[in-house]
């Protein structure tokens, strides 16, 4: 794939990346930087979920018990996985839209993140209210 891209783009540097970006023209540089910062905000969200998931499994086992602790931890880590991987595709789709001067796509990771965190919060809250063994 890299070879193909190199031969296709006649010496232009970063031909693979221009192929990934799918043509169009560079937008206002401020928008490119804003998109980069948004990507970083998503990555930080992912890292927070990651640290949270690890912390639940490592430090909260006595509170949740081993089984529920594992479930909450894996849910948080799955959210970290989705937001971490999704951040790149979010960044790319926004960049592509800006290059082709289309309207920006909606972030599909946002509803997943909102639903996931709400579910985890509800489960934890219910666990605290009902009382743990």
């Amino acid at each position, binding site marked *: 794939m890299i070879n193909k891209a190199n031969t296709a783009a006649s010496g232009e540097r970063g031909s693979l990346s221009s192929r990934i970006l799918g043509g169009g023209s560079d937008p206002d540089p401020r928008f490119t*930087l804003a998109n980069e*910062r948004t990507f*970083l905000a998503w990555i930080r969200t992912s890292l927070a979920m*990651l640290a949270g*998931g690890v912390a639940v499994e490592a430090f909260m086992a006595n509170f949740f018990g081993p089984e529920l602790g594992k479930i909450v931890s894996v849910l948080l880590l799955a959210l970290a*996985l989705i937001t971490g*991987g999704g951040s*790149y595709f979010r960044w790319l789709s926004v960049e592509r839209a800006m290059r082709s001067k289309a309207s920006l796509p909606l972030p599909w990771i946002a509803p997943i993140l909102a639903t996931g965190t709400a579910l985890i919060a509800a489960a934890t809250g219910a666990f605290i209210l009902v009382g743990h063994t």
Partner: protein
Amino acid sequence: MAAQLGPPSHADTGLQPERTDLAWGRTILSVLVATAVFLRWIPHHGLFVGTLIVTAATTAVVISFTRKRRLHRAVRGINQGRIPPDVASTAAFAASAVILSLLSIYTVLFVPLNP
């Protein structure tokens, strides 16, 4: 390094290069916090956690060392009116987050707890 005091100037009153640089800085801190949490995981899951720590620390170090280059690139881009999107950095960083998540899930599910 001594020849140049700070990055070259630009005319963006929105301070985009500086804000982007600070966003990278905050992100480095987030990676370091995650690394610290992984360190606390070693007593529970043993040396397998080392893979997480090495991945996270490498990510933080690489971002730190490329930070100045990014800032200069942003300033240059503002001055030239265009910035080539940094596909490689975003892809690599997202890949690092995905690897860390997968390794963590594997650790929770399959690496036995130390007694």
